[in-house]
């Protein structure tokens, strides 16, 4: 546990990506199996403990700490694991720090009733940093600023490999990944994962900056709509069928309707949508189907899933990724015509003439299911990662409104103790005359750390009421919020909800009377 706790502690304070990478690579290179494998799983989010949940942790602390003092502390610290680690009243013990493997295997092997004693014993033997690391580990979500991909990059770096190589074999591996380390260290061959419906790392697009748009030689590119769903990879091989998210998470369990339709031997790339009578439903409908382990018959009926395909990676064992986009597109069309799997269709190619025409199509696309355009180089192979140049996403400009800050809530994690979540409203005329603010949404991104400090200060100085972690503020600060679309919503007092709102600009200068009214929201409703 000691090296692992030291790693997490160093990671959380290390601001630079390369620094984080160096810390992890050093850890993986110097820590023996199986500890490093468990640490890797913890960092990639592939470790979970069914028996040790936050509720259990609360109970454990409640047995030793005055509940009121714990509640006040948690409210201040804003993070359950850190609060518990700091507040834990240690009892003397002569036990040494446990190894990471001992913790992981111990928890997995323990029955529900044994877990509290096991945990309490470990907590007594660790110091505050060790306890924090242990509790972060078991409650999930390390929040040390490391993505699964960065952790894999660190492993790859041991042997000077590329992260795509690790991602390619990743889904054929199991904890604690000994063959992976043996391979990157050059002691053994690459793990054999060719067979099966494993995840293949995706090719991702870069945003097209407006200044680059004009210099782009559009004749070399193909264009598609950018659909407002989520990117998925469907892989079927020898009876095994899997659906992966863009990060390689297996989300098959939530989509039995799609699995049933996957009567093919191929790996395809596409956009997951909810489709009703050939119409793409709002993103909100798709959200009903996401992040679920299982799904009811009613959900399947109400929110039918569909995948709009745009690439073919494998066909009957043949790796098509080295082929050009045009060649793969042709193979995709032929394959789809031949197999015509249910619940799929092809994302059409948009005829490209010149940039101006494309620009018009992009801004003219007010259909809520379209986010903008995708531009893909005709001669480019399918490359893992986000190579610069072959693929661009060209989102249409967001909608904006000038709104007034109404409530601010303290953030969690990195933003604990800062008022960082903002509920904002627009003006609405009252029956009794005059106008009042009604909330239309909440935003917690789009500002810099410096701006956050300034808003936080403003909130503290203009508080009129407190409700736990929420402060009501006197109307006085105008935000320009950007968002993707507006929808009717019975859940909001204003009757409308904004999709993906973020702070676009802070209008310190703007008088609140000049903020938008409810009719402005109405005017922006999706068609």
């Amino acid at each position, binding site marked *: 546990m000691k090296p692992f706790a030291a790693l997490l502690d160093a990671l959380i304070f290390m601001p630079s990506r390369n620094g984080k990478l160096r810390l992890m690579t050093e850890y993986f290179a110097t820590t023996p199996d199986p500890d490093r494998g468990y640490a890797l799983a913890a960092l990639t989010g592939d470790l979970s403990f069914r028996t040790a949940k936050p509720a259990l942790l609360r109970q454990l602390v409640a047995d030793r700490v005055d509940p009121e*003092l714990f509640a006040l502390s948690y409210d201040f610290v804003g993070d359950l694991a850190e609060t518990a680690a700091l507040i834990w009243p240690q009892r003397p013990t002569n036990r040494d720090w446990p190894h990471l493997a001992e913790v992981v295997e111990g928890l997995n092997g323990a029955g529900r009733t044994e877990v509290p004693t096991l945990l309490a014993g470990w907590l007594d033997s660790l110091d505050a940093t060790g306890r924090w690391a242990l509790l972060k580990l078991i409650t999930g979500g390390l929040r040390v600023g490391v993505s699964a991909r960065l952790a894999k990059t660190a492993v790859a770096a041991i042997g000077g490999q590329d992260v795509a190589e690790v991602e390619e074999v990743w889904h054929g591996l199991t904890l604690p990944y000994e063959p992976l380390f043996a391979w990157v260290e050059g002691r053994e061959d690459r793990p054999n994962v060719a067979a099966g419906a494993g995840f293949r790392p995706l090719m991702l697009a870069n945003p097209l900056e407006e200044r680059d748009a004009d210099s782009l030689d559009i004749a070399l590119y193909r264009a598609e709509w950018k659909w407002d769903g989520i990117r998925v990879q469907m892989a079927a091989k020898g009876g095994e069928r899997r659906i992966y998210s863009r990060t390689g998470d297996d989300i098959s369990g939530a989509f039995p309707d799609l699995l049933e339709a996957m009567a093919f031997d191929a790996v395809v790339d596409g956009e997951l949508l909810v489709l009703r009578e050939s119409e793409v439903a709002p993103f909100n409908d798709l959200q009903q189907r996401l992040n679920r382990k299982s799904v009811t018959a009613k959900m399947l009926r109400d929110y039918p899933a569909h995948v709009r395909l745009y690439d073919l990676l494998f066909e009957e064992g043949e790796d098509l990724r080295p082929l050009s986009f045009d060649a793969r597109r042709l193979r995709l069309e032929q394959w789809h015509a031949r197999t015509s799997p249910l619940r799929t269709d092809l994302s059409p190619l948009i005829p490209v003439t010149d940039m101006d025409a494309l620009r018009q199509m992009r801004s003219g696309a007010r259909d809520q299911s379209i986010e903008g355009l995708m531009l893909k180089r005709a001669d480019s192979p399918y490359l893992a990662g986000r190579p610069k140049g072959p693929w661009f996403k060209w989102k249409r400009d967001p909608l904006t409104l000038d709104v007034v800050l109404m409530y601010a809530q303290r953030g969690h994690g990195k933003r604990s*103790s800062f008022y960082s979540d903002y509920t904002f409203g627009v003006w609405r005329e009252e029956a009794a005359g005059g106008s009042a603010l009604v909330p239309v949404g909440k935003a917690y991104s789009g500002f810099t750390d410096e701006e956050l400090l300034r808003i936080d200060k403003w909130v503290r100085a203009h508080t009129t009421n407190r409700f736990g972690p929420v402060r009501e503020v006197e109307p006085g600060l105008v935000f320009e919020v950007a968002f993707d679309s507006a929808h009717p919503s019975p859940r909001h007092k204003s009757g409308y909800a904004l999709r993906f709102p973020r702070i676009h600009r802070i209008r310190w200068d703007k008088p609140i009377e000049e903020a938008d009214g409810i009719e402005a929201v109405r005017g922006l409703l999706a068609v």
Partner: protein
Amino acid sequence: MSIPKPESWVEVRPEGLYVRPGRFHVDPTRPVEKAVITHGHADHARAGHKAVLATPGTLAIMAARYGVEEGQARQALAYGEPVNIGEVELRLHPAGHVLGSAQVSLTYRGSRIVISGDYKRRRDPTCPAFEPVPCDVFVTEATFALPVFRHPPDSEEIGKLLHSLALFPERAHVVGVYALGKAQRVICLLREAGYDAPIFIHGALQGLCELYEAQGVALGPLLPALAREKEEFRGRLVLAPPSAIADRWSRRLPEPVTAVASGWMRVRQRAKQRGVELPLVISDHADWDELCQTLADVGAPEVWVTHGREEALVHHARSQGIRARALALVGFEEEGQ
């Protein structure tokens, strides 16, 4: 004659605590006729009072900060010396917070109230240790009054800093410290740990370091961090107010490791939010255990809790059978907020 109820002679006013039978305030936040000052931090020692009573150390700090104020009557009182103001007998006792810091002990018709200002219980090479004074009402701060705040031994934290210095000899190490108290204490702790190289200090620290030296606190070799070549700072320690670290000022330093010495550094996410790479949990305020221990040591049947996390300390005191309430004092800053 019956013993007066404490709230009948010490009351909370908008400008701070007022001692009615002595007609003076303790640490008032606005200019008043007569002020008794516990210590030199700006939120306790404000300028503009007509008369001031404090320890010689505190008076020296106030003079350094505000200059010698025209027409102000200043009275220096040594620790333990009694003085009568009206019907009130007043003594100052060490609070262990910063140089000159004092608790104000007030006795009136057999009732004693001790206003402790800010304090800590652990050893501080720059000032005498806190002395518990038995009393009827103990007025306490609550800056770190949550059981998550347990300051580790200072030597461990100084060790972390020296370790990092050895690990990154090519980088400057800049430590954010308050100009009054924390800066001089950190310097003394470094000297005690055997660090005898010159320490660079930001201009805002200069005057107070000189004042400490003049008051008999040896700080070793200090150099102004002014107008120097970047190269000169490599592998060196630089002390600066926290506000300067995030500012353009720090651009003169080569790839600095940013450390901050503060009790708030105990909470990781807070340290992280402030962009701190090397958090050092060194505080001039009592931690949770020290606060609880102090309530037990002074044995007062009643406790008034001032600035900080009053709720938790009031809760704890009540659970110990002590009458406790939070005083709604305005104008006190939280360290490092």
